[in-house]
């Protein structure tokens, strides 16, 4: 904070109550819509550029085209994260949070059972709350655009019960609506997860990483060398590609997702 008066030690101190995270689908457009048409023109420089903006051009690119020597950028692109929040890393998280991640990665606690409401174990409850809390407390440490895989061997009865047989291109999909789900940056790891079990359908989910609702827990995982990224519950995607195939009598399904 800057000093309020020269030669004086007084300071502005911000007082914040609990911050409620608000997700705005298109923050640039919703901000622009708060201004009049003339003000919008002044912000981007001309009506032609305003038209480009409304056609989907990124506003930072418009600014930077006009003033290439003084480019603007997002705080998280410049500093790696939102300066107001702590970035998730093994140095910033608490002992309890490390403990919960360890419990998640070594399966010493039935956290997923609790998240699905089929366990009331107190320790799992505590870990579950801590893990979900990570997504609100820290900004993501995930680099966007990296390909992540999730491999599953789904029992035949569950395959139908969960509606996998009805999935088509264009439909909405969430990896898990109740629990955290794990992804790996290794195709081989995903393949090995799907490899399991004889009477099971092999499902591989493929997505591009995004720096919202995802945390890379590789550096704090108890599983050595496992490049794991966790995704919070109920994050919805659009199926942009789906393919089913059979290899050696085993059914495989590839689902490619794009964030909504």
């Amino acid at each position: 904070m800057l000093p309020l008066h020269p030669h004086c030690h007084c300071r502005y101190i911000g007082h914040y109550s609990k911050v409620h995270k608000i997700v705005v689908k298109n923050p640039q457009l919703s901000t622009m819509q708060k201004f009049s048409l003339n003000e919008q023109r002044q912000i981007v420089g001309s009506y032609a550029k305003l038209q480009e903006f409304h056609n989907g051009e990124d506003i930072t690119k418009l600014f930077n085209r006009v003033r290439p020597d003084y480019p603007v950028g997002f705080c998280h692109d410049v500093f790696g994260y939102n300066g107001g929040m702590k970035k998730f890393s093994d140095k910033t998280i608490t002992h309890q949070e490390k403990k919960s991640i360890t419990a998640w990665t070594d399966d010493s606690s039935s956290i997923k059972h609790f998240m699905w409401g089929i366990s009331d174990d107190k320790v799992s409850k505590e870990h579950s709350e801590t893990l979900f809390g990570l997504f609100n407390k820290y900004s993501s440490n995930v680099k966007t655009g990296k390909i992540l895989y999730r491999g599953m061997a789904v029992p035949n009865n569950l395959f139908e019960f969960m509606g996998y047989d009805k999935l088509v291109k264009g439909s909405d999909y969430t990896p898990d609506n109740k629990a955290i789900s794990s992804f790996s940056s290794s195709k081989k790891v995903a393949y090995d997860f799907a490899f399991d079990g004889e009477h099971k359908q092999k499902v591989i989910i493929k997505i591009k990483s995004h720096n919202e609702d995802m945390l890379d827990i590789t550096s704090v995982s108890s599983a050595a060398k496992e490049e794991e990224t966790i995704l919070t519950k109920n994050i919805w995607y659009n199926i942009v590609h789906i393919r089913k195939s059979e290899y050696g009598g085993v059914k495989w399904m590839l689902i490619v997702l794009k964030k909504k």
Partner: protein
Amino acid sequence: MDVNSSKKEIKQISEASKDMLIDALNSAKKTRKRVRENIKNNTLPEIPKEIDSFLSEEVA
């Protein structure tokens, strides 16, 4: 079908799905343990060529 028998049927279905889910979660736990061992010992299975090309299809 009266209301009570219909309720009973719904309960039975949800109990069955619960069992199914518990089995799946427990089985996933075992899988995870096996995969972690494979990662640790560098013994992850090679992906057969045809499946590899199937999995390499472009992401949007």
